[in-house]
């Protein structure tokens, strides 16, 4: 099993207008037959959330990859410990960075939606919003967003109660593709109600990527996320990561 991975982010129109950086970030790696990937969405209200999302996604993927040999034999409890340890380290490193920069950890507020996926099974891990989808031959496994009562409120890895909001959910069957997305991409990647992928978007994308090399596919995905038609849908940053199995 070899994963081919395509990930792109596009700045939202409101971020372009305000001269803000793209606050989404993604990172991915392969460890043998395992896919390791994370998408982070920096809080709009946090000053340096683009730094937070970039650091969190990269550090988390790096730390999980370094312990990648544990994945094949891990059970649910092992993964809970592994992910909790890795996210704790990532968060502590970020807190240290905040201390040096003389700012608060909350300035780096970002959500996390990640996956470790092997040939037969895997897990999503998730703090806050964004969505993870594993597509099986029959059906899908979802990791859904967690919001407060209101759609514009969510939970961040930088929050003091992040552990209470960390959700680790098993993917119990082989997947032919795995998707991670920030909430800006959800309105057009997911169908109404977020219980299924929106086929008129996802099918042409996966069909194209199946025949593209990673560089071309990634560029085309980036251009698609940056399509002016998305500006009538959301003013937010949009990130989509698609991993295709073979």
């Amino acid at each position, binding site marked *: 099993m070899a994963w081919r991975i395509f990930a792109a982010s596009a700045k939202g129109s409101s971020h372009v207008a305000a001269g803000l950086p793209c606050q989404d970030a993604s990172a991915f790696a392969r460890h043998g037959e395992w896919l390791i990937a994370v998408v982070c969405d920096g809080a709009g209200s946090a000053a340096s959330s683009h730094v937070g999302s970039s650091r969190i996604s990269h550090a988390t993927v790096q730390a999980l990859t370094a312990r990648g040999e544990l994945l094949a034999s891990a059970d649910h409890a092992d993964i809970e410990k592994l992910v909790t340890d890795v996210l704790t380290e990532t968060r502590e490193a970020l807190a240290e960075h905040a201390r040096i920069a003389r700012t608060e950890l909350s300035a780096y507020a970002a959500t996390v939606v990640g996956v470790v996926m092997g040939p037969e099974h895997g897990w999503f891990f998730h703090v806050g919003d964004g969505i993870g989808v594993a597509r099986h031959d029959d059906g899908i496994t979802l990791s859904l967003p967690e919001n407060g009562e209101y759609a514009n409120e969510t939970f961040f890895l930088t929050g003091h109660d992040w552990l209470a909001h960390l959700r680790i959910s098993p993917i119990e069957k082989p997947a032919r593709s795995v998707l991670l997305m920030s909430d800006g991409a959800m309105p057009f990647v997911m169908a109404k109600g977020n219980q299924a992928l929106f086929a008129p978007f996802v099918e042409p994308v996966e069909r194209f990527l199946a025949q593209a090399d990673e560089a071309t596919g990634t560029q085309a995905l980036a251009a698609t996320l940056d399509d002016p038609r998305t500006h009538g*849908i*959301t003013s937010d940053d949009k990130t989509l990561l698609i991993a295709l199995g073979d």
Partner: protein
Amino acid sequence: MTQPVIPDVALVDNTEQRTPLVLVLDCSGSMGGAPINQLNEGLQLLERELKDDVIAAKRVRLLVIRYGGLDTAEVVGDWCDAMDFTAPTLEANGTTPTGQAVELALGEIEAEKARYKQSGIAYTRPWLFLMSDGVPTDAWESGAQRCCEAERSHKVAVFPIAVGEGSHPDTLGAFCSRGTAGVKRLAGLQFNELFLWLSTSMQVVSQSKTGDQVQLPATDSWSTVTA
């Protein structure tokens, strides 16, 4: 080199997110003449501005409550999406039953939220926009207390606006969790500027996402500084 987009991709909005806004408007006798005319013009401006923003037009839900007459508070029209909103032409007469109007608004907000929950529609925190040019003439204290508690428990965001010399910011302040400091005073009859600000704020809020705080536009174009 620009990479073309992936061919045949549908890009449509599948979200069903709403931002409820209730306008609680003082239509007592003292609003007669220029004030009510300017208020009506402001409402028309709000309608146009919201309809001009493709995202806000779909997401903002409006309800207008007028209060005046013989201590009467009433819903004008029904909840509607901004794209279907037609600004009403309000008339000024009668008294100022602010307490009753706010109680009606809070009830409507909870009923609307219940409908969203039932249909699985996500929503942002409702706004209660309370405008008055006078002193309440009804037993307003319990309504004010309920409103204040609703804001403290995060059920609603309350924006009291005091209009003209006859208004009473300290009383209006009792309706929101920040007290008198939370009351904005309209400079003269700058209703157009006020509703332009409201429209811009709704555009920001309706498109907001992850983040506890939304950066609202400045209010200097229409409010006076209260010491």
